[in-house]
């Protein structure tokens, strides 16, 4: 059996596709080829499940260990790992949960679960995000008045924002222990959150809708001209200095000037 054929067949077996040619090449010695291949399949699933458990501990607390394992297995089968680094595995878990909420009756009472998973993914990503440089004030002062509208601010690499129709902050905070909270508080308005890392500490903070809108625009790479048009000068004048001060904004670039 050629090496290419063997490796392709091995990986197919790991995702549940029977490969008779490979099985016939495996020495049984007290165990069937299927049993031997199952050890590798089990190891791979365990590694991915462990990664999901580490990234989504609050989701796990809420649904319970057994159901989390069941969901994780479905996810791992649908989303094979495509990177050697397991810290980047699991980014599609929030979308997977969103779809599962609509199809899995056991999740119908947990409509906020996908949003919670998104928060946990941002939290995990913030932990591993690159360190930030500090803003170059000298270069900023040298930007001509004519080009100031082309400034694109750069947020901290760890920073993410999200909105939710659920009381996400309370749900996340209240379920971080070993036991799930008994009830979920009500919410009348959407909630906006900012997730980031300050020095080595991870933070989740509630922000107002205007801050969310402005930060979202900055994260999308909008120029100052577009930010001013969408958010107004008042908010920008008030919020930008605060965000530079606290490290949420840590750099800038200039968009290409229009021809």
């Amino acid at each position, binding site marked *: 059996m*050629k090496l290419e054929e063997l490796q392709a067949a091995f990986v197919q077996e790991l995702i549940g596709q029977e490969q008779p040619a490979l099985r016939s090449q495996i*020495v049984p*010695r007290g165990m069937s080829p299927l049993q031997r291949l199952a050890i590798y399949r089990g190891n791979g699933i365990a590694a991915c499940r462990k990664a999901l458990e580490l990234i989504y501990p609050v989701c796990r607390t809420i649904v319970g260990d057994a159901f989390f394992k069941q969901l994780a297995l479905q996810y791992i089968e649908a989303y094979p790992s495509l990177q050697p680094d397991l810290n980047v595995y699991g980014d599609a878990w929030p979308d997977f949960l969103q779809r599962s909420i609509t199809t899995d009756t056991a999740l119908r009472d947990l409509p906020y679960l996908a949003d919670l998973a998104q928060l946990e993914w941002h939290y995990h990503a913030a932990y591993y995000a690159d360190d930030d440089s500090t803003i170059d004030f000298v270069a900023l002062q040298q930007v001509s008045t004519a080009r100031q509208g082309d400034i694109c601010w750069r947020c901290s690499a760890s920073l993410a924002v999200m909105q939710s129709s659920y009381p996400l902050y309370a749900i996340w905070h209240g379920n971080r222990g070993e036991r799930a909270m008994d009830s979920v508080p009500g919410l009348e308005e959407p909630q906006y959150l900012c997730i980031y890392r300050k020095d080595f500490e991870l933070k989740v903070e509630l922000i107002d809708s205007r801050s969310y809108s402005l930060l979202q625009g900055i994260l999308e790479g909008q120029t100052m001209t577009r930010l001013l048009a969408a958010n107004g000068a008042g908010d920008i004048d008030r919020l930008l200095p605060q965000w530079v001060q606290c490290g949420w904004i840590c750099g800038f670039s200039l968009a290409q000037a229009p021809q």
Partner: protein
Amino acid sequence: MESGTGFDTRPVSGTGIGLRSRHIGQILSERPNLPWLEVLSDNALARGGLVPAQLTAIREHYPLTLHGVGMNVGSLDPLDWDYIRRIKELASRLEVSWISEHICFTAHGGHHSHDLLPLPNTEEALHHIVRRIAEVQDFLGQQIVMENASSYISYRHSTISDGEFIGAMAEQADCHLLLDVNNAYVNQVNHGTDALELFQQLPLDRVREVHLAGYEDKQSYLLDAHNSAVSPPVWALFRELVALKPGIPTLIEWDNDIPPLAVLIEEAERANNISSPDEPGE
């Protein structure tokens, strides 16, 4: 090959332990008398935040080595140069004494198994892995250290023994070896091979590091679980290895159900007592 980027910048000897995140704070505050520590490269790839800061602090006090599972050296997939570049940057930043990897493939067609998948011991596989190790070494600018992997599968079409395969690979690729005694024992039980014969077939002058770890007895096979103390048969094989080639830097690996640091240090002391029998202790 280019000149080294850090190889042997910090000499390693004696018995070290695998560095695990739950012990980092204690190691930094108590500075236990350990000759070196091994970092799992795949857990240390972040360029920001707490992980690199802690590792930088650790390296001020201990020589470090890097041990990885993601290089996928035995695979027919193209080498992941972005990943290898990150390993090189990490090695340079931490001034590690060497980088080790496994004799296996871990991915094919872009699908990563996160396990050590066994290669057949064939001429084709040998030529392939020799060529790939050479490519990696050229890029890193240093020799790498390749570990014998544990396995649960052997192939009918293998034509040479593990020892012959690994020995030829090391000679032809001009790389170093990491001899995992636990893996040798796991394979002995799982495949009926002879661990001692493996030791005797290897070019021991190329063995730069020895690993000791615990397995889990699953009744029908041994799982290379790294979740317990080194077992008596593995200690016995380690004694045989020390008799064949004393003084190889040795490492206690414990990755799951990780015990208090003191337990790892006791295991390291036990290994030292075997590898340095003239010194009082055992």
